């Protein structure tokens, strides 16, 4: 297992090759993720959103931005419950995502399923389910299809919590990918807890990255709150996977600053030590990245607003759009169970 140093010194510092325009875009994406989370929590609290849970991603933004930023348009991702902003980074509109959250007819699932259980194969976004770990096995199939088409260079980034690495489907999926050297990058968002359960009751090794050793694939354990570390590691992993060397596992060590979901705020301050939460508040990836940007000397303070208000507006508009958008017609509940449109030719 390779462990990157936390101070961000790596073999290749890919992040130093980024243009100023990239840096500002990254900064904005970090904020997009932050505001997306904040504003949905707020909508839920205020009763604007009345159905479904909001699974927070506060504190985990650097992972989502860092793992998607170096992707090619034709790569695949499979985001799960804490990765809502990834849908937007990979091409869904904020309106689509909000329609999904509000269960509207225009949502990618047409209101059938909730929250992150959506996808769009045209955008390379693979649909996941609630069943933790299962999409990692499905990912192998998406990559198998690429192999059949002679496209061994398209990578799939599969997200998972550290807790879900204990599931059977995680094992079967990673094992299959490793046997067949599929370009699968498993991003483990180790936020230290699975719901209330601490990582040491889920994972027997010191780092989650060590799971990689059992499959003979590279495993990284990195500071997931450091955008540059995530970005650099991801670039390295992409090169590895695209070259046909098989899967990579990247453990991004981070912390779930909130409860498991919006209903869990009170309890989450009981089953976790408050000092621990406070400690991690200080490691917030956003101020950290802002400081890095200022240290580059490329930016004035005023170029890095906290928050960028236009993003807030964009999200608010999308929320309003979703709220005003029509509910699905009841009878559509029976549509899309079977597809009789094609398939059987006579």
């Amino acid at each position, binding site marked *: 297992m390779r462990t990157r140093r936390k101070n961000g010194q790596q073999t290749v510092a890919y992040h130093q090759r980024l243009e100023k325009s990239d840096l500002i875009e990254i900064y904005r994406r970090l904020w997009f993720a932050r505001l997306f989370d904040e504003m949905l929590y707020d909508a839920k609290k205020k009763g604007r959103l009345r*159905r*479904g849970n909001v699974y927070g991603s506060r504190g985990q933004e650097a992972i989502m931005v860092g793992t998607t930023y170096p992707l090619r348009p034709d790569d695949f991702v499979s985001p799960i419950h804490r990765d809502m902003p990834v849908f937007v980074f990979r091409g869904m509109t904020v309106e689509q995502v909000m329609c999904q959250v509000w*269960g*509207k007819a225009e949502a990618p*699932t047409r*209101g*059938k*399923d*909730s929250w992150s*259980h959506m996808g769009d194969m045209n955008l390379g976004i693979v649909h996941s*389910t*609630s*069943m*933790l*770990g299962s999409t990692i096995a499905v990912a192998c199939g998406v990559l198998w299809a690429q192999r059949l088409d002679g496209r061994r260079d398209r990578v799939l980034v599969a997200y998972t919590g550290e*807790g*879900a690495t*204990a*599931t*059977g*489907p995680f094992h079967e999926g990673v094992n299959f990918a490793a046997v067949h050297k599929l370009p699968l990058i498993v991003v483990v968002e180790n936020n230290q807890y*699975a*719901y*209330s*359960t*601490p990582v040491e*009751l*889920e*994972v027997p090794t010191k780092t989650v990255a060590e799971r990689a050793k059992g499959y003979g694939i590279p495993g990284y354990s990195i500071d997931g709150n450091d955008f540059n570390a995530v970005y650099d590691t991801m670039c390295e992993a992409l090169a590895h996977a695209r070259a046909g060397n098989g899967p990579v596992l990247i453990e991004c060590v981070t912390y779930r600053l909130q409860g498991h979901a919006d209903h869990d705020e009170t*309890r989450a301050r009981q*089953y976790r030590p408050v000092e621990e939460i406070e400690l991690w508040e200080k490691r917030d990836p956003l101020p950290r990245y802002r400081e890095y940007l200022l240290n580059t000397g490329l930016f004035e303070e005023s170029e890095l607003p906290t928050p960028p208000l236009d993003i807030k507006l964009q999200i608010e508009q999308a929320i309003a759009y979703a709220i005003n958008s029509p*509910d*699905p*017609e*009841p*009878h*559509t*509940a*029976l549509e899309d*169970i079977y597809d009789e449109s094609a398939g059987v030719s006579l």
Partner: protein
Amino acid sequence: MREVTFLEAIRLALWEEMERDPNVFLIGEDIGRMGGAFGVTEGFLARFGADRVVDAPISETAIIAVCVGAAAAGKRGVAEMQFMDFISYGFDQVVNVAGTYLYRSGGKTPIPIVVRGPSGGYVGGSLYHSQQFEAWFFHTPGVKVVQPAFPDDAYGLMKASIRDNNPVVFYEHKYLYRRIKGPIPEAHEDYIVKLGSARVRRYGEDITVVTYGAMVHFALDAAQRLEKEGISLEVIDLRTIKPLDMKTILESVRKTSKVLIVYEAPKTGGVGAEISARIAEQAFEWLDAPIMRVAAKDAFVPFAEPLEKYVLPSVDDIVFAARELAAY
């Protein structure tokens, strides 16, 4: 008598069985530190310790398997599925390992385990937090299936399930958890509701309604509405789905000659199909009308409210079907 919620009744049954028998232990995700997603096991870790209240990794196969192995070695494990939907990850352990164990051991190794958890819809839980697929285990030999509708039954059936020597899949409808209140006996009484015994929750003359789980409450509501129209429903709460109490059902059918079976699962291939088939086989001559069923449409439980409502059965559905039967 104590007046408690449905959830509290289950909690108390678990607690008292843990107190009574040191062989009983609990395992599941987040059941210890947090007391479970719905709080059913709140306070258990502090009282019984981490060996008897096990916060397991996210691995439903292992969770059920630990109960199976421990049962083979004389313990009585109760596995919580955080949502019953996740039992599909431990499916093989239930049907092929737990259910068959006694058979494979020549009758020597009973597997007293309970796999319990919240099931059912009506709360916007969407595809993977609303399932009600008890028919899978109903069809597979070796496993008992329980689903109470009232606190007293939840209490007595949980105790019976833990003491039973067979694997029991125990469905707790999450819609009832905090909505339904009722009396249960005082603590430490050996209050047991025998597995396999249905209960007539309302006596009536015209139509026998056979149902279980949350649908019992819907059926009782429908009965009340229909009373005003002069249609009298007899409502049988199965309580245990397997073993199935055909005796109580047939007695009622003999009286009413008309049957309406109500269940929350997709209609096709649900438990109600078997009940209908058995009545058609065993009570054909007593019937004055077709055997009717009200159930979910053959779809998944969707997220958006208008969709969920469209798919799941309602009190109205029961009322309409009963009217049709009454008029037959």
